[in-house]
């Protein structure tokens, strides 16, 4: 007997009502039930950060939250960053700074950075940025470009 629940959640501003089995993680629900395949799945136990999304504005590993827990919540995924074909400042910076190579970890890094930058008042120093970017794993080891991209956006947004 499956334990199923009817939930309602908003993803990138779009409302969804969906029936989910309780053991499906938010990452499963986003990718397989709702088709938001921009959220990538790596380790599925909270180490790699590839599945990072924003849940009510907070960065979370979507593999460590059950889909049913997102009932009534606002989710942002990498698909929600750009304005149509126009990339966000953060996405442009990743491109400009060569902050992505194979691209697998990129959605997670973008959402991690988006969350971190949104809570900054001033411009974080490089050590702080590095500490936060250590949350996720890039197996191409392209961290220099990622750190540079986040720093540039922090400066741009601070004016």
């Amino acid at each position, binding site marked *: 007997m499956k334990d199923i629940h009817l939930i309602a959640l908003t993803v990138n501003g779009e409302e969804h009502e969906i029936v989910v089995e309780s053991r499906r*993680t938010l990452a499963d629900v986003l990718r397989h*039930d709702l088709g938001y395949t921009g959220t990538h799945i790596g380790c599925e136990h909270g180490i790699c950060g590839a599945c990072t999304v924003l849940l009510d504005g907070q960065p979370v590993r979507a593999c460590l939250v*059950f889909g049913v827990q997102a009932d009534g919540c606002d989710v942002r995924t990498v698909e929600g960053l750009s304005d149509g074909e126009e990339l966000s400042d953060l996405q442009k910076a990743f491109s400009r700074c060569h902050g992505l190579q194979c691209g697998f970890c990129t959605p997670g890094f973008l959402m991690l950075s988006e969350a971190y930058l949104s809570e900054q008042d001033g411009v974080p120093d490089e050590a702080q940025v590095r500490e936060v970017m250590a949350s996720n794993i890039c197996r191409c080891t392209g961290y220099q470009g990622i750190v540079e991209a986040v720093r540039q956006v922090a400066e741009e947004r601070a004016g």
Partner: protein
Amino acid sequence: MVKYDIPSSSERSEDKDTEWSVVKPAAFTYHRAYDVNDTIAQLAELGPDAKILAGGQSLVAMMNFRLARPSALVDITRIGGLDFLAKDAGGLRIGALTRHRTVETTKVDGFEVLSKAARWIGHYPIRCRGTFGGSIAHGDSTAEWCLLTVLLEAWIVLQGPRGRREVPATEFFHGFFMTAAEPDEMIVEVRFPRPAPHAALTEFSQRQGDFAVVAASARLDLAENEILTSRIVLGGVGPQPAVVDVDLAGQPANEETWRAAGEAAAAQVDPPSDGHGSGAYRKKLTATLVARALAEAAA
């Protein structure tokens, strides 16, 4: 709904009735609680194989590995009023659902050790989701909050069908993820009885955010340059936070004292060997980290 022809799943055989299925954890029933009494009632009804789901940053990872297979989860994340740090009669109370990140970003006079130690917990997104009470309930022997509750002689406040009770942290952790909490009890808050202006926690892990190979925490009471009382608690050297029997009362607060205390602490422990380090290596780390923690506590 998007459909996939090839289910990539550990569950293919188990879920033959479904068109496709991609899941990691074993099946459980999900229940949501809206207050503490509701939680306790649900736990009693669901039986001892039910678990409380708070931040889920350890539990869900263990469920994804199927190291944990609870029959039911009671989600307490929507209970209001348990997310707080409150000064209380000279001490501090922390609500069970307070996120690590909140502790990290809240400076409380006399309890700076908590916000400083928080940065050792996992990573930023883990700290945004994980909860103080959840970490205590999980009872990992290297967990920063477990060490600090023992170091600062905090009280774990539990509520269950038999009412409310307080358990000293020194008696709470029974080792290997076992605690004094009964299956039908819930941690509602942690009470720190008095400030600890001279306290510190430090640790070593192979990579930032990993579990500590060894963690050391220290608390001092100082008068001028003399130590009045001292307390040292270690993680990673045994199945639960280990209180070291080293009394520094009467000694001067200087590098020589810290170094000698580190050596004395290392002589007392008999740490296990595993893939992250041998027992001998952990002993050396203990000496170094205890000296560091003491120096930082005195600073």
